[in-house]
């Protein structure tokens, strides 16, 4: 009897203990749930305050930069450390923009290299508004002024240009001339690409690496006869041809007044534009 009731009591006690334990875990879980939430709330409050501070700084910088750009007196407390820092940051951004301007306006982006023994220049090229390839030249300036490295294609003779322009005495003169050659080459190359892209019925029979020679096969709409159009770009500083000739299978069309106009067009406008005009006037397909 005693055993059974004590066993029963023991069981009951165990049951009560288990209940108490689960209530505790449940309570502490609930408690840790609340503290977890509290921690999250604090974290978000910090994040919110940081974001507000960052936005305030951005707005101050913007305001200060705008008034400095207009040469107005900056509305800042000169003595505060924060204001001094803001001023430094704005001046930094102004100088960076000035350097960007030099770059965008086609400047040479000169950089000292090789422990100040050399200068590295960038030569950008463009066709009208489209930026094309940029080339680089490194010139030693310590003892003798000479070209140490460059990535200019071999068909442009950089060394002889350096000699012609007296690079030793006048680096800028050399760069200006080199830039002229590179821009003209880039332009001619770009025009050739546009001919291939825009004029599928025009066949490019011959061209060279320097893009100083171009031979095209044109087709007349009615008779479907072929015309050979040769463009000579013997002035490598220009992106327009120096000589144009158009030959038909039967005759040399240079004498026909109609084709005289087309030849003049090819001499005065970029080749892809001239071809478009000729297509529009139904001279070619």
């Amino acid at each position, binding site marked *: 009897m005693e055993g059974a009731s004590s066993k029963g009591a023991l069981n009951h006690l165990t049951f009560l203990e288990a209940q108490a334990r689960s209530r505790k875990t449940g309570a502490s879980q609930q408690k840790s*749930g609340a503290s977890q939430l509290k921690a999250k709330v604090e974290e978000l*409050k910090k994040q919110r305050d940081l974001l507000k501070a960052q936005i305030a700084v951005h707005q101050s910088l913007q305001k200060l930069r705008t008034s400095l750009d207009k040469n107005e007196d900056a509305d800042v407390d000169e003595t505060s450390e924060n204001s001094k*820092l803001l001023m430094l*940051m704005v001046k930094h951004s102004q100088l960076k923009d*000035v*350097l960007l301007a*030099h770059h965008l306006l086609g400047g040479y982006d000169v950089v000292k290299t090789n422990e100040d023994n050399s200068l590295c220049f960038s030569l950008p*090229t463009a066709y009208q*508004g489209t930026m094309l390839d940029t080339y680089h030249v490194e010139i030693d300036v310590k003892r003798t002024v000479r070209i140490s490295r460059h990535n200019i294609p071999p068909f442009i003779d950089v060394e002889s240009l350096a000699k012609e322009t007296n690079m030793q005495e006048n680096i800028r003169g050399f760069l200006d001339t080199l830039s002229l050659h590179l821009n003209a080459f880039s332009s001619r190359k770009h025009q050739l690409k546009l001919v291939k892209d825009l004029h599928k019925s025009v066949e490019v029979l011959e061209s060279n690496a320097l893009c100083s020679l171009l031979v095209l096969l044109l087709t007349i709409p009615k008779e479907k006869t072929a015309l050979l159009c040769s463009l000579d770009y013997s002035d490598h500083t220009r992106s327009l041809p120096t000589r144009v000739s158009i030959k038909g299978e039967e005759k040399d069309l240079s004498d026909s007044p109609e084709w005289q106009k087309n030849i003049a067009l090819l001499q005065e406008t970029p080749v892809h534009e001239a071809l478009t005009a000729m297509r529009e006037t139904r001279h070619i397909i």
Partner: protein
Amino acid sequence: MDTLELEAELQKLQAEVCELQKQLQDEQCVMGFDFRGNLLLALKVLCDQSLAASCGQRVALQLQEELEELKEDVERQSQMNGYRVVRCSTRRVDSKGTEAIAERAGGSSSSQQVCVSGLCSEIHFQVEFKLAELKFGEKMKRTVTDVNIVMEDSELQSFSSFLSRVEETQDLLLFFRTLRTFCDRCDERRRTFTHFQPLNHCSPAPESSPHSSRTPHCLLHCTNVSQH
């Protein structure tokens, strides 16, 4: 605070943070500040008082040093490029259509209105243009459009037709190369004329006529100039 109240506050804060993040993104878009290196440190200092106390001055010093380096760089560029940029400001331009198309194709695009004012020799110029950049991985394509150039100098009447052509063809590079060459020539001309000016005030020798006594001086100076 009980859990229900806490959860409500959490939600409210999350919404607030989301809103502020959007606002910050918009501010960053307008600004065009590149927050890296010393600029990033400065931003952190300005947003955290404890950081400001501990390393605010050091960051200011580093930024000052960097400013000096940038000024030297600007001077170097001005010397080499033959013109001075007085001011350059950029403003982001909305081109949501192009941006969406680029993003769909896996790239990115941005458009800026750039306004530059500067000097070439002593001639003031102001150039405005739109710069569009299209990025696909490593490749970047830059295009310049809507070029507008204003120059100050009555001497440059002959320039106006050239200016119109540049504005038509958007050939900024050509414009600046030509401007610089033109200014170099103007400078040379000015130097040569200034060289001859003092001679006009030479007092002639008593016996000879004013002209003949000036001539030997002129010739001497001529040979000196040509030797340069």
